[in-house]
């Protein structure tokens, strides 16, 4: 049944899973690449910034506001006050900077971001092994445990005036701090990658759910369509079958009429028995014809002709039709339609409802062989439905039979085919109504039918019905 859909569903799932896998792999690969690059990128950035800061300080040392152009150690010492604020400001600019200082050519700290370090001599390892030439070029040195700050990268920028080495500006970058910052960025990249993967998985789950729902509802529609087609097939078969039966039955009826007429001409007493036989034969033919008609209705619940009509009018119509026949059977027909139910509309198959009412009336007639009363009532239950009752004063139905009365092919009569009430139930329920029966042996039986109210002008087409145009009944 759904074999057409399963490969599609599998393909969809496969594509989805592959898609997520690709996205996840891409995310992780990108993360790895980015992470790998973070270290060098960050270090380069720190380096560039460091030298930039150093240049700034050097320029300030070389051309300070208010400082003499010809610098001596003494002059710089005096100028510590002017330099210190700048050095301190730079030092707090970034958490990776541990110190900024100005150092004399012979290693004495002339100015320091930490004031307490001034006039300290730098340890030999800082520049002991370097030549004079190195002093004149900016350089970067990795140092160990200096000033208690752990591993340091010392950036140094010479202050040179007319080829005279006046001083060197140093900026220390904390290795651990730099590493920490790099690690932080790396972890945020990983976080981003994880988020992307999680997001893709979530999207995939939602998409899979939606796809599943769509496929399922498509399959349901397919199943419903197949069922409808099947019903239509069955219906066609039923139609064909009934048609095949009808003509022979009709022919038999004609033949019976012929034979009866022939017998009439002969008219001998011995032939009376034959006439009686024929009557029984005719009764069988009629019974089979009724069964064919009833079966056709029973087998086709999905075909009908819905229209909007006044229920009271149909009741009057049926009552007028039945009255002559009922009078012959000594049955009085009382019709009581409440005033607020006179104009109320229902929407369903009028012909079928008419059949239902005739069926029930026939049952009532059979229940009153010695005459009686058939009371038909119609009332409107405001905001709810129309309530119809058909009560006879007949022999009634016992409680154990009453429960089976709507079963197909169940009959309390010898000559019934047992389809009448089960068809009635089908027809009423197809119109969203309800039907019920109550009875008391010796008193009578009452059938209750409730049908939903229909507002004028409302259109409605049963989903499985071939498009039947709703007729507006002349109100």
């Amino acid at each position, binding site marked *: 049944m759904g074999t057409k859909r399963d490969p599609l569903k599998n393909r969809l799932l496969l594509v989805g899973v592959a898609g997520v896998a690709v996205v996840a792999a891409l995310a992780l690969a990108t993360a790895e690449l980015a992470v790998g690059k973070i270290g060098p990128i960050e270090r380069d950035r720190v380096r560039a910034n460091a030298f930039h800061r150093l240049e700034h300080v050097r320029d300030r040392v070389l051309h300070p506001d208010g400082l003499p152009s010809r610098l001596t150690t003494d002059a710089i010492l005096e100028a510590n006050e002017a330099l210190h604020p700048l050095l301190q400001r730079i030092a707090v600019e970034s958490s990776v900077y541990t110190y900024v200082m100005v150092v004399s050519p012979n290693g004495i700290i002339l100015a320091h971001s930490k004031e307490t370090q001034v006039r300290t001599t730098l340890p030999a390892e800082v520049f002991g092994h370097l030549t004079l030439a190195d002093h004149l070029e900016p350089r970067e040195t990795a140092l160990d445990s200096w000033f208690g700050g752990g591993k340091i990268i010392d950036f140094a920028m010479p202050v040179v005036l007319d080829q005279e080495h006046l001083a060197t500006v140093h900026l220390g970058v904390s290795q651990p701090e730099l590493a920490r910052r790099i690690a932080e960025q790396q972890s945020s990249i990983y976080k981003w990658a994880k988020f992307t993967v999680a997001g893709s998985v979530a999207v995939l789950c939602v998409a899979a759910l939606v796809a599943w729902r769509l496929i399922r509802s498509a399959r349901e529609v397919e199943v419903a369509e197949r069922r409808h087609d099947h019903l239509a097939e069955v219906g066609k078969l039923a139609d064909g079958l009934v*048609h095949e039966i*009808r*003509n*022979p*039955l*009709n*022919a*038999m*009826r*004609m*033949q*019976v*009429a*012929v034979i009866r*007429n*022939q017998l009439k001409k002969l008219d001998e007493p011995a032939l009376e028995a034959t006439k009686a036989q024929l009557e029984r034969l005719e009764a069988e033919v009629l019974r089979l*014809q009724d069964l064919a008609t009833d079966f056709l209705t029973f087998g086709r619940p999905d075909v009908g*002709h819905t229209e909007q009509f006044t229920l009271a009018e149909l009741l009057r119509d049926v009552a007028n039709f039945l009255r002559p026949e009922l009078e012959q059977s000594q049955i009085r027909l009382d019709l009581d339609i409440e005033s607020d139910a006179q104009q109320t509309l229902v929407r369903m198959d009028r*012909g079928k409802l008419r059949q239902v009412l005739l069926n029930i009336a026939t049952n009532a007639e059979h229940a009153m062989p010695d005459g009686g009363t058939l009371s038909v009532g119609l009332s409107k239950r405001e905001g709810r439905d129309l309530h119809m009752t058909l009560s006879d004063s007949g022999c009634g139905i016992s409680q154990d039979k009453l429960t089976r009365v709507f079963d197909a092919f169940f009959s309390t009569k010898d000559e019934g085919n047992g389809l009448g009430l089960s068809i009635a139930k089908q027809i009423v329920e197809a119109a969203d109504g309800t039907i019920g029966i109550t009875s008391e042996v010796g008193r009578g039986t009452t059938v209750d039918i409730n049908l939903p109210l229909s507002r004028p002008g409302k259109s409605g087409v049963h989903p499985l019905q071939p498009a039947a145009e709703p007729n507006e009944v002349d109100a």
Partner: protein
Amino acid sequence: MAGKTVIIIDDDRSFVDAVAEFFEEFDYRALKANGGCEGLGLIRRDGVDVAIIDVNMPDMDGVELARKIAELPQPIPTILISSDDSTETADRCRAAGTGIFLAKPLDPEVLLETVSRVLA
């Protein structure tokens, strides 16, 4: 009714036979045809007084045939019969204005009464 001729036109042969025999029993002359063309030919040729026509025939639609009969130089009354007793078919027949419509299964008495009424 003595001396009158009916023609029964229906694609179901056994049915046509049964109805023809029935009319013969009641002193009619009965002609048989299984299709519109055949029926039309018989009507033109023989002296037919009334035609009983099935609406659903493969070679020609019964209503169409009734209309053709009404357009003959000497038209005759037609009785259309059909197993399809829906209001649409009844309306269609009435709209064609060509005659009477009877639903199958045919009641023998009703059929006789209708034919004699039409010939009166």
